[in-house]
């Protein structure tokens, strides 16, 4: 059984995962994305930076903090038939909020209303069709970066002008989302395959509740309703090792906000009492045909 972990660098999550693999008697090869140099016309006989052929790996666990490097590496490896977690197809959808929205919509999974437009003028129309307040987001990006809650037309015009003037072309894809009046918290659910392993509330007085932005984690019970919407959302993007962000709506429902495919979980094992790293490793090994 050979495992590689593809990383940008070692964060607490990667350290926990290496330990969890070692507890199963497996020492993963840690491969840095900065060392990758693929011959795109080659195949899996190509030698990885670890010194082994990529073909030798039963599974490659992609844990890059650099989304672009991780996704393209998955694309290369999957095209060569190398098994990865997650798959390129799943990563490609999850890294892009627009593609995620489309996948969830096709599957009928509840989510906030969302629109896309490509000029400041049409984006203003999109925001006003959603109503104020609305949220403007980059289609790619994480950790709550460059999210804007737009309270009124003045704010919308200002943000749109700044994005058009200062941003690269990614910032000119105006993804606008309905603002959900959530109860000072959202839900982060950890899903393996289509099974919800555990979940946390992320509580913050700020409307952005990411733990990377100071949101406080506490245990969230996995109710049948939560497990059901998570299973359907995970299936909609192809399944895998996923972290789903959900909002509780004022009418008591749940909507899926976004799906993360290289999740952070350093703050989540303690409140949930679930060893997430161990569960991820077991999932990876079982998928590779090893009874862990």
């Amino acid at each position: 059984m050979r495992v590689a972990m593809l990383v940008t660098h070692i964060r607490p999550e990667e350290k926990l995962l290496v330990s969890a693999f070692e507890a199963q008697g497996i020492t993963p090869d840690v491969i840095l994305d900065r060392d990758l140099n693929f011959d795109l016309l080659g195949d899996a006989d190509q030698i990885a930076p670890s010194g082994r052929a990529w073909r030798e790996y039963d599974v490659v666990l992609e844990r890059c903090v650099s989304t672009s490097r991780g996704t393209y590496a998955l694309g290369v490896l999957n095209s060569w038939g190398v098994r990865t977690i997650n798959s390129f197809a799943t990563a490609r959808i999850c890294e892009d909020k627009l593609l995620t929205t489309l996948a969830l919509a096709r599957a009928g999974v509840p989510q906030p209303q969302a629109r896309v437009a490509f000029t400041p003028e049409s984006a203003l129309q999109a925001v006003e069709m959603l109503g104020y307040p609305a949220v403007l987001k980059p289609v790619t990006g994480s950790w709550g970066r460059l999210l804007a809650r737009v309270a009124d037309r003045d704010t919308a015009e200002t943000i749109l002008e700044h994005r058009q003037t200062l941003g690269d072309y990614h910032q000119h894809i105006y993804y606008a989302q309905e603002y959900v009046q959530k109860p000072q918290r959202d839900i982060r659910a950890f899903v393996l395959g289509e099974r919800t392993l555990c979940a946390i509330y992320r509580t913050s007085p700020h409307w952005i509740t990411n733990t990377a932005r100071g949101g406080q984690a506490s245990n969230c019970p996995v109710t049948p309703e939560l497990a059901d919407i998570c299973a359907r959302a995970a299936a909609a993007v192809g399944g895998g090792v996923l972290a789903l962000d959900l909002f509780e709506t004022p009418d008591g429902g749940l909507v899926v906000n976004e799906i993360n495919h290289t999740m952070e979980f350093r703050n989540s094992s303690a409140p949930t009492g679930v060893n997430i790293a161990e569960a991820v490793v077991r999932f990876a090994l079982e998928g590779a045909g090893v009874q862990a």
Partner: protein
Amino acid sequence: MITLTAQCPECDADVRLPDGVMQNELISCPECGVELEVISLAPVELALAPDVEEDWGE
């Protein structure tokens, strides 16, 4: 267990590496708070961690 230490490239403080430290692990300098990457374990060598890029995240 041997305690590994190295100098912070930003402020020259002695940085004690955590037990079980891994190559390419990110740590913080306890003196100046800068984020560091352990780029080598033998010998121990620290470098400033790369700046967060636009596509970094989950």
